[in-house]
Each structure stands twice: as C-alpha cells, then as structure tokens.
C-alpha cells in the first residue's frame, strides 16, 4: 500500500516521462499477432484462432493454491466489465464501461493514461459494456457505444483518429474488441434487438478509411437474399457483437452472427441467412467465402456470436481443419474450414435442449419441435433459455490437454409469448413484451439442483471429460494455460476460480469486489507470471439474476463497481 501512494504523490506527468519514452513501445505486427510471444496477451482471445490459451506454466496445478493479489485498480465504473487485460511487453490496455480505455504498467499497476469518449446525451445504452482493445502498429483501437471506432497512440493515449462506423440513432452500437489483421481493423455492431442490419466492416489501420463492409443479411438479388420476405432484410438483425477469428494461412476471417430480428419467425418467413451463422470472409475484400447456419429461422433469441474457434481436431482417424462453436442453441458444433466453404462434421447437445428433434447428418440442418417454437400470439416453453446453453462468454481450448472448455448454463428454460411489433428507428424491435422477457426464466427441479457448469470436452471422441457445477448461473469467460489450469469467474458469489485442466478439481478461488464477467488473461514480466481479470457485474448476468430473483424464493444482490485484479505467486524465500 505504501508503495502505491508514493507513486500517486509523484504524479502522472513524471510517469509519462520516465516510464514511457516515445520509442519504448513495441510495435504490434501481423507476425506477432500470428504467433504471439508467450509472455504477452496481444488480442481478445490471446491468439487469432480464438483459443483463450497461453503456454505459460510457472503458475500451474501444483502451486496455484498460493496465488495472491499483485495489484488491483478500480475503474470508477459500474455495469458489466467484460474486457480482457491486453498486455504488450509490460504495458496493459483495458477497456471498461463508460467508453473508457486505461493503460497501466502491468507489473506495478501504475496508471499511464486514461481515455474516455464522450457519447451523445440522447444515446440509450442497453449494454453499457466493452470487450476490449485491438493492438496494431503503435496504436490502440476500440469501439464505442455510439458506434465509433477510435484509434489512440499506445504510448500517450492521444487520439489519432475516430470514425463513425454506423448510425447510433438507428440502434447501432459497438461493444466488441476490434480484430486487427493485414493493415486493417475489423469491427461489427450490436443492436439486433433494435432492428439493425448486421455487418462486418474493415478500416485502414493508419487512416481509418473504410476498406470494405459486408452485410450479414443479404439484400434481394444477392445470394441468400431470397431467404427474407420483401424489405425485411433491412432490419433483419444478424448483428456481430463479439470479435471474429482469423486464419492467416488462408487469409480468411470467421465471424459469428446474432439472431434474426424481430424475434418471432412468422414475421420473416424463410431461413433468414446469414443470421445465427458463422461466416467466412476474405480479409482483403470482405467477400463472403462460405457460411454455416447453425439454426434457421430463429425463434429463441439464440445469437451465435461468440468467436468461432479454429481448432484442428481428430475425427475417425482424420485430422480436420476445424471450426468449433458451443452454440447459444445448446449444441456443440464441429465444422470444417474448406478453401471456399464451411463443411458440417458433427454436433451434439451440451446442455438440456428440447427444441431440435433431429440434425441432418450431412448438412447439419436441425428440425424443430413446433410446440417448442415461439410465434406471434403463441406461448411456448423451451430449453435452453433465451440466454442459451452459452451466451457470448468465450470458451477456451488447450492444445496440451486437447480439451475444449465450455462455460455453460444447463437445465434452464424460458417461456415466451410472441406479440405484434412495428419498426421505428432506434426503438426496440423484439416482439416479446419486456415484462415477459424480465420474467422469462423457468426453473424445475433440475435447474434448482444447479445451472452453471464448466465443462471439458474431448472433441475427437465427443466425450464430456469433466464437469464442474455451480448452484446458479455461470457468466465467466474462460482462460486455459500450459500450467494445466482453467480460470474463470461468472458466479454470483463474486468469485474467480482456478481448475485443474485435466480433472476439473477446483484448486483455488478468490472473492473479488463484484461478480467476475471479464475475460481473463495471463502474461509474464521479469520471469514472473501474472493472471489478470476484471470484476464488475452487470448487463446480461445482472438481467439473468433479475429473472432468477423473479422465480426463486431468495434474492441475490451482487454489488456493482469495476476493478482490474492481477494475481501472481508470492516470491519464494
């Protein structure tokens, strides 16, 4: 404590002079992003493949029980803190709600600079959160809740440029971490619940000039355009609110897309391409190279936005250049990356799912139980709930254990009644009463037994290797490491946990200031490994808590307020 108050006394200008000479910043190149150094965490999921994996092993299953706090920093913000501490050779960049970027000395926790973007006073912020920065060259990039992309000088925090990505007045907003590759900064947009038309757009990293924009919802006359009636594509959703992944070998970027809008499928007869899909785009041109729609004509609010994972897995003696996704629809999807398409390999439910009656073994197209498919004027009970088997919260893959780790919500169901809705720019475009959404959760004995899970899957056999159960929800993004560990928060008891990656035994947990919905990261400085995560409960975790409170005999209060927590092992001797 004494040390940090000394730093404060010296003041920020001294820090800027002594710690950060303009030449000190290690420029982030395509080569570094494609094969990140073990000591760094350079992007949202640590690598382009979307793994959430670090080979660092100083903190491991044998010593993790001794993990202790290195430093902590209060963001000064309420609401959902979801972004990973991103680290480039000792410098940490973190975003928080309130459109804020903070740069810190990753070893000491000293603040280097802080940037806040002013949003228009008329802006409505349904999801006041942010999932992190992208690093590229000497700049730091982030998106804002008024749909701007902003580039800052990494060393000083000075704004280099900002560009409007889309019209916030029509409901577009950005919460994802941008993806940086090949001289471009890629972003998508949130706003599916406001009737936006989803897209992925690329901007020149040095100038901010738009290079290309590919809509996730095709217009009439374009391939897939006939899967929408009349002009409904213009507000068809398919929003892209979590970063994509990138395959540098084929120069292809993969993005997950949100549900079709509005929620009730009878308002938009057809398959509604490319909503609820993964799409493959050419990094140079944005041209659509392939897609796989996980489920057509969505009726359940099952966005499939989480970062598509590029994993090569074994299947019947063959190595498959794979694409893996634990769906909000409750199925684990194994796909294949092909040069000009995406192939279906296998799928199975990883949580209780009563909607799909079958999945075509060739195409992967599901068939639905009509009694489990909501519609306008129709009330339906279905599982998993509208938050799905897994929402945006990222899975993790460990190439050493060869296991996929999934932060799941099992046993949970919803009841929804569709109602008529009309479109008005910038207004909600859902078609289910808000009072229904706030109380949608249905919990039977199974759900009362437990909901949250951390699951480990062997993709080659389809076997569930271990499962850790939490009594209530799990909204904790996962990190896995070469130290045979899996880290994640997500519970409403404010805890951050470490598991043995092979057995699922919980080896350590720590109660933070608030609930942990942040993406954890890990890095190394001067031979010491650190694990970092933001704590700060809010947005959908908080909404699910509200829905639980509506049906459970007890209420749970999770205090709000964000903090960056950084842990390390105590010095020996």
């Amino acid at each position, binding site marked *: 404590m004494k040390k940090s108050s000394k730093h404060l006394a010296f003041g*920020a200008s001294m820090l800027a002079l002594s710690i950060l000479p303009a030449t000190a910043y290690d420029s982030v190149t395509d080569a570094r992003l494609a094969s990140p150094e073990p000591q760094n965490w350079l992007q949202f999921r640590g690598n382009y493949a979307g793994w959430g994996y670090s080979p660092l092993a100083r903190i491991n299953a044998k010593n993790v029980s001794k993990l202790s706090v290195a430093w902590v920093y209060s963001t000064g913000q309420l609401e959902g803190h979801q972004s990973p501490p991103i680290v480039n050779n000792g410098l940490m960049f973190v975003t928080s709600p309130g459109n804020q970027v903070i740069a810190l000395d990753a070893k000491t926790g000293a603040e280097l600079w802080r940037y806040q973007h002013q*949003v228009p*006073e008329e802006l*409505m*912020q349904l999801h006041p959160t942010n999932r992190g920065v992208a690093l590229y060259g000497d700049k730091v990039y982030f998106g804002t809740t008024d749909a701007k992309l902003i580039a800052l000088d990494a060393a000083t*925090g000075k704004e280099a440029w900002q560009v*409007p990505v889309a019209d916030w007045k029509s409901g577009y907003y950005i919460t994802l971490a941008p993806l940086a590759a090949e001289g471009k900064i890629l972003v998508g947009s949130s706003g599916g619940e406001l009737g936006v038309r989803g897209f992925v757009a690329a901007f020149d990293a040095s100038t901010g000039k738009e290079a290309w924009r590919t809509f996730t919802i095709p217009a009439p006359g374009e391939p897939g355009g006939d899967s929408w009636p009349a002009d409904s594509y213009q507000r068809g959703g398919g929003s892209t609110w979590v970063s994509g992944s990138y395959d540098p070998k084929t120069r292809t970027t993969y993005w997950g897309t949100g549900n079709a809008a509005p929620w009730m499928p009878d308002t938009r007869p057809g398959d509604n391409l490319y909503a609820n899909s993964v799409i493959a785009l050419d990094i140079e041109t944005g041209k659509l190279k392939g897609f796989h729609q996980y489920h057509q004509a969505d009726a359940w609010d099952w966005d499939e936005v989480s970062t598509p994972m590029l994993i090569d897995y074994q299947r019947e003696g063959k190595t498959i250049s794979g694409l893996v996704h634990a769906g909000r629809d409750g199925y684990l999807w194994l796909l294949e990356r092909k040069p000009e398409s995406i192939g279906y390999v296998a799928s199975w439910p990883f949580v209780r799912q009563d909607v799909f009656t079958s999945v075509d073994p060739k195409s992967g197209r599901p068939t639905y139980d009509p009694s489990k498919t909501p519609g306008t004027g129709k009330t339906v009970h279905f599982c998993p709930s509208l938050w799905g088997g897994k929402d945006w919260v990222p899975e993790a893959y460990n190439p050493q254990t060869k296991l996929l780790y999934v932060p799941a919500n099992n046993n949970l169901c919803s009841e929804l009644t569709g109602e008529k809705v009309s479109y008005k720019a*910038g207004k909600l475009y859902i078609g289910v009463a808000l*009072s229904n959404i*706030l109380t949608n959760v249905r919990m039977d004995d199974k759900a009362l037994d437990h909901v949250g899970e951390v699951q480990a899957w062997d993709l080659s056999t389809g076997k569930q290797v271990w499962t850790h159960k939490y009594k209530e929800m799990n909204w904790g993004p996962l990190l896995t490491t070469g130290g045979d560990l899996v880290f994640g928060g997500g519970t409403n008891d404010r805890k951050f946990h470490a598991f043995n990656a092979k057995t699922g035994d919980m080896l350590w947990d720590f109660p933070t200031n608030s609930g942990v919905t942040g993406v954890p990261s890990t890095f190394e400085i001067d031979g010491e490994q650190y694990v970092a995560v933001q704590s700060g409960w809010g947005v959908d975790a908080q909404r699910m808590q509200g829905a639980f409170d509506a049906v459970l005999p007890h209420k749970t209060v999770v205090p709000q307020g964000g903090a960056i927590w950084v842990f390390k092992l105590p010095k020996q001797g």
Partner: protein
Amino acid sequence: MRTPGGRSSGECLTRRTALHCLALSMATGMFGEGGPAFATGVDSARPREGDRLVAEDSEGKPKALQLLDIKIGDKPFGAFPFNPADGIKREGSRLNRIILVRFDSSELTPDQLARSADGVFAFSGVCPHRGCDVTEWNDKDRMILCYCHLSQFDPRNQGAVFAGPAPRPLPILPLKSEQSEIVIAGEFSSEPGGAKAID
C-alpha cells in the same frame, strides 16, 4: 495524464435548439448526427407550462391526452409534449419523452395530489441511468421500472430511486388539468437523460 475525447459529437447535442444542432451537423458533415427529425413540424425545446401531451406513437395532428386516457394500475403511458398554439410536437429530442402513471386520488396525500392532475403523474420517460426508454411497471410495489438494468422509481415520492443502479431520481414534471385535458404545469424537476459518459 488523461486525454478527454469526443470533441465533435457531444457538441451539438448539448445545444437546446434544433436549429443550432442542424447547422452544426451540416457544417461538420458528421454521419448520424442531426438528422431528418429536425426538418419540419417538430421542436426539441423542453416541455413548458401550458403544453399538452400526445401519445408517443400517434401520427398526424396531435390529439391532447385526457385524464381518462390514463388508467390506474396500467404500465407507464408514453407521450410527447406539444404546443397547443401551433400543434408542434416537441419530439425532436428523445429526452422529451414523458411517461404518465395514475393512482386513485383518494389514496394520495395533499402534497402528492398537488404534483398530479387528479392522480396522474408525469415523469421523464428516459432513464437517468443509461438513457433507456422507461416503459415498465412493478405492480406489486407500484413502482416505475426500467427494463434495461432494472432501476425502479417511486412515482408517489417524486420519482425517487427505489431500486437498481440509477444514480438519481426520475425527473418529475408537474401537471394540472383543464376540462379533463392533461396540461403541463411547469418544467422537469431536473434535466432528463442518462448519466454523462465522462465523470
């Protein structure tokens, strides 16, 4: 060291009048600022004494809301103010959205009654937390509820925060009635809108 951002976009929206805003947005050419709402027949000025109210989704010539339009125990009724002299709706700013809720006047104290028009209360329809439209009703506690992050406001206690993350009360707008028409009797108790981004 701290670098404030948002040079261009905040500017025009802090102005009270549509004209300023329109001029600025045309000059700077910012995508998504200003917009067609300012073209004709609407106004962004805040509601004032004597204004009447019109249902938020109604189109054409505004029809003033009557006391009878607002039912006891119903969800908040969304409306915008308009100037009865020229019929111009003040919907150029979404911060002028107003919600109405009604109580049985026999159960209100004289103070509460004085802020209402025969048991009808008016509040800002924009949540002081993060600016969502306030639309919902907690019937058990008879509180106004914001669906976005579940803030609740007490309509009988001048919009005081009853639950949730909102940092301040929902601004109240005093009402009176004239020949059973709802009439605005003053200004918002405080500026409507969500918390400012920079703190």
